[in-house]
């Protein structure tokens, strides 16, 4: 008998022998016929990862990516049929790889890839009317708490990850070695990673965690540009609620 435990055991481990009880039409051992399934599993998972991590593929090249993906998928096969979520832990896996230690920013750039996919599939939401903010008197505004679209995701890094992402996939300016906070926003259906100015990441984090507007903007420090942040959030339909 060939139970699924035996069939499964060899799929992700090429050194495992072909299970007993599998044959061709002449009752000879299945041999490489079993290898078709083994190959299908590996290739389909690898392709799903490559599709989900375009910037990582661009940064290390497809051949290197395939090596990383193969090691990852053998260690961490999907645990759900929703392939849209597969690979969420690949950034941590990459961060721990000795061979990639010379590229310390890789994992955080890969986190943008993960967040872009999460944002793409996140729930739809309705943004506030921007004039609602202008209509508030100052005291009310300072006491207001914001809520944000489920598709808004912030990735904070010690590295210029937004610049690296743009440079890799869209050919932007050569990245400079400074820390960056990247805010992924989805105005309608297409997520966009936007590099935040100085202090803005701290302000967004404070707002996300329910801090009233007045206290949140104090987190930004001297170089924080409030108008610039609002000019990112409002056109991208990021603010979905105001609560005083």
């Amino acid at each position, binding site marked *: 008998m060939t139970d699924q435990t035996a069939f499964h055991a060899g799929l992700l481990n090429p050194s495992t022998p072909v299970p007993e009880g599998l044959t061709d039409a002449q009752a000879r051992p*299945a041999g490489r016929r079993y290898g078709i399934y083994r190959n*299908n599993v590996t290739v389909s998972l690898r392709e799903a990862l490559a599709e989900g991590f375009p910037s990582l593929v661009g940064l290390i090249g497809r051949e290197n990516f395939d090596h990383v993906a193969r090691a990852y998928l053998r260690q961490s096969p999907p645990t759900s049929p929703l392939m849209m979520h597969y690979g969420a832990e690949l950034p941590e896996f990459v961060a721990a790889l000795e061979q990639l230690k010379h590229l310390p920013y890789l994992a955080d750039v890969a986190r943008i890839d993960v967040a872009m996919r999460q944002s793409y599939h996140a729930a739809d939401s309705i943004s506030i009317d921007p004039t609602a903010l202008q209509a508030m008197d100052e005291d009310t505004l300072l006491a207001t708490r914001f809520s944000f679209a489920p598709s808004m995701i912030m990735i904070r890094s010690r590295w210029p990850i937004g610049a690296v992402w743009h440079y890799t996939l869209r050919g932007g300016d050569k990245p400079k070695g400074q820390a960056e906070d990247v805010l992924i926003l989805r105005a309608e259906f297409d997520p966009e990673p936007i590099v935040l100015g100085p202090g803005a990441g701290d302000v967004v984090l404070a707002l996300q965690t329910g801090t009233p507007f007045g206290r949140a903007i104090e987190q930004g420090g001297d170089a924080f540009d409030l108008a610039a942040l609002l000019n990112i959030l409002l056109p991208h339909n990021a603010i979905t609620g105001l609560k005083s």
Partner: protein
Amino acid sequence: MPDATSAFPHLPALPGVGYKAQHFTDILKDPNPVGWLEVHAENYMGEGGRPLAQLRVLSERFPISVHGVGLSIGGEGRLDPDHLARLKHLCDWLNPASFSEHLAWSTHDSHFLNDLLPLPYTSDTLTRVADHIDEVQTVLGRRMLLENPSSYLAFAESTYSETDFLAEIVRRTGCGLLLDVNNVFVSATNLDYSPQGYIDAYPLDAVGEIHLGGHDEDEDDHGAPLLIDSHGREVVDPVWALLDYTLAQSGPKPLLVEWDTDVPDWPVLADEARRAASALTRVLT
């Protein structure tokens, strides 16, 4: 998410295609698009965004077939209740013209393997598959179609032919069948039996939909042909001939062209659908 409940209760006996997001605009602009569309259920299980928005628009114009690829109906373990609930949510929201899944397994020990894996055909596996189909039909509150697999090997322990196995599943559960004629051709070549003989033995009365797709060619350890179900190219002539052979016995059925890898531009896929349309015309004349 507004309700997308479709007004199409059945798949028409016309050609359809497996829907790919990159064809959205082309399909809506095509003055003579296909008769219906099939979507992979798992691609529409996100919370929102473009996939669901597109599906809502398409469901207003086309009958939609929801085709699951991740339920693992042939699995030894119990069906994943979370996944079944997601399928129910999608079907309740969309009210598709058809729901289908595979005679295969893909989940084991909580690992999802993203492939349609084979099972032996025995009285034990028959009971298990029938129980799983009963559960699916009860939870979804609708009849499902079960698709025959592409096989690359045989199980020494099997005691049923695939056609007898499927016929008995239909008898026990009342489910319908999705007949993939490319899978029949692939399995018949790989396991050295007659594809026409398979069709002759197959319970055609239960067929609610027919699939067509492309396959690749390889060889086994002994140099025998080994066909791989790849859905990455045109349907080959012998499969079109097998479709004609099938339709001559079954009468017109909803036909679906699947193309899932190296997906071509819309006109190429539309040409394949037109070829399917001419097969339907032939059976009516």
